């Protein structure tokens, strides 16, 4: 197992003038470890789904998980915000997941607080059947934000961050179901961004989208890493190459190789990785 040191790329953190009214979320400086997985095992009931995972995910970069179906990449992603807790019998059976210096599986962790810091975008775009505005501010409303100006600001910030502002600013009160698939997925990203998490988890965010919408979402992902640590699960190896600095290859519940994307695709160290990225199995 090879766990590469994360590359220390200098990424300029630009604050656009558009978002000046909203401060960027407090995050560790670029490249510092955001999520640290330490020797983690994960079970669905008695069936072990993840075996001894070790990885360091750096902040403000895009990390991609690739691997064949059923390899555990989604399970691993869903461990980072403990949304797996919902599934009966699913539990972490060894090791730790440390986010911002805190093991999130400690008994004293409040999962609602955790999930406010670790946002998630799902495979199937799933806006609520409410207005665009209400969708975006959902996370704020459940946090008890009532002031209209705060909600308006957050809505504008999130929609701009998700590159949806220009398309939607005139119909914020319209039902979100009137949007196209790609717009709905970007709306879901805006909804996750509105609460300003540190980390954005994306579970195959483009698998239900057409190629053009996919391209837009990919551009957005690259854009989002200025402010957020992005972890993306993808089926599409080309997508990992296009958006991710780091790529992790998983197979049968194990992390086979984790390194810079260029290395995974250009010069993989493991035979399994090489076979997979060459398309010899899937």
């Amino acid at each position: 197992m090879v766990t590469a040191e994360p590359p220390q790329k200098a990424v300029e953190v630009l604050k656009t003038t558009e978002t000046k009214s909203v401060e960027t979320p407090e995050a560790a400086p670029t490249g510092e470890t955001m999520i640290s997985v330490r020797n983690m095992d994960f079970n669905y009931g008695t069936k072990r789904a993840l075996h001894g995972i070790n990885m360091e995910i750096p902040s403000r970069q895009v990390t991609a998980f690739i691997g064949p179906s059923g390899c555990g990449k989604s399970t691993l992603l869903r461990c980072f915000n403990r949304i797996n807790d919902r599934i009966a019998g699913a539990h972490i059976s060894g090791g730790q997941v440390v986010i911002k210096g805190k093991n999130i599986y400690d008994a004293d962790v409040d999962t609602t607080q955790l999930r406010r810091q670790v946002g998630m975008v799902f495979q199937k775009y799933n806006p609520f059947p409410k207005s665009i505005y209400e969708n975006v501010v959902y996370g704020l409303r459940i946090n008890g934000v009532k002031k209209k100006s705060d909600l308006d600001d957050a809505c504008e910030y999130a929609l701009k961050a998700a590159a949806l502002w220009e398309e939607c600013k005139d119909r914020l009160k319209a039902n979100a179901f009137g949007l196209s698939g790609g717009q709905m997925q970007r709306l879901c990203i805006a909804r996750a961004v509105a609460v300003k998490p540190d980390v954005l988890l994306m579970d195959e965010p483009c698998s239900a989208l057409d190629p053009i919408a996919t391209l837009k979402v990919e551009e957005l992902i690259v854009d989002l890493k200025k402010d957020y640590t992005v972890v993306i699960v993808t089926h599409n190896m080309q997508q990992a190459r296009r958006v991710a600095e780091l790529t992790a290859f998983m197979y049968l519940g194990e992390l086979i190789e984790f390194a810079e994307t260029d290395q995974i695709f250009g010069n993989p160290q493991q035979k399994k990785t090489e076979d997979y990225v060459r398309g010899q199995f899937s």
Partner: protein
Amino acid sequence: MHAPATSALLENPFAKRRSHRETYEFIVRSVLRGATYLILFATAAIFLHIIVKGSPILFQAKAPFINVEFLTKLPETLHVLEDKQGHIYKTDPKGADAIKHQLGDNLRQEKTISYSGGGILGPIVGTFLLVLVCIVIALFLGISSAIYLSEYAKPGKFIEWVRLAILNLAGVPSVVFGLFGLGVFVLAAPVFTNTPLDRALLVIPLGFTQMSFQGWDTSVLSGAFTLAFVILPVIITASEECLRAVPMGFRETSLALGATRWQTIWRSVLPFAMPGILTSSILGIARAAGETAPIMFTAALAFKDKLPWQGEAGFGGVFTESVQALPYHIYTLAARIPQNEYSERAQYGSVFVFLVLVMTLATASVLLRRKLRAKYKW
């Protein structure tokens, strides 16, 4: 074997087999169609009979076109007097005295028909109150338990048993519910009072007052609770289905945004399940309004000369007074008094009004559901 292909009047080589199957198909189709039309016929017969016989009692040719008296007066005894010339006078007890006095010796005979005079305001008000309170109780209990079963409870053997028990509740005969209501709500439910009755099962002193398990008497509250238990299985089962129909993604998204479980249910599950829950409740409403057995021991009287708020407690007594109810009133009119040409008016009138009332209730629910559905569809 086969006819030559040159002939334009080829016999269909499959004709024989098809006709055999066709006969079979025809029989099956006729049976199915016949069954459907039979049901349709029965429904039409019931509705037409009630409308033809009942509408002349409620509606009239002169302004205000509705028989206001029938809707705004309490039931009373109908007096029919006949003089020796064959003139017939239909009147109430007071009028009867006056006419008797006027006719003197000219009176040939007098008939009295119980409950058939006046109007049916008492039963209408009673049924309305019972249904209203029942729906509030049943929706609260039913939706709460459906949420618990489908969102909170860990699936397992025990929960399966709970579900089975709830389904079994639906099979309990309604008269058993009536007796259950009598035993529990009428005779044993707790009340706060300073002067507990002797028959109270248990009295717990609370300092400022006492909690006495002496029951709520025959009252709207007792009846509404009993009715609520009759329709609870329907509401729970249907609500659970509606909750399960809400996409899992809504819950996951909401939780992933940091919502608590209850916030998730309140904001992004329940609103979208509500139209379906209300639809299923329509059946419950109609059933609750129509049940006779559960209320005859717990809430309804055959006759009462006061409206619920005309008792000693005034408007405060609306829920604690016994009432008349339409289904029980219809039963009384049909089975408890001698039948003759003068009893028909109240009988058909009550049934007609009852039918209109239930249909109005159902229509209102459908409209409400449609409004909600348009707002929350996905």
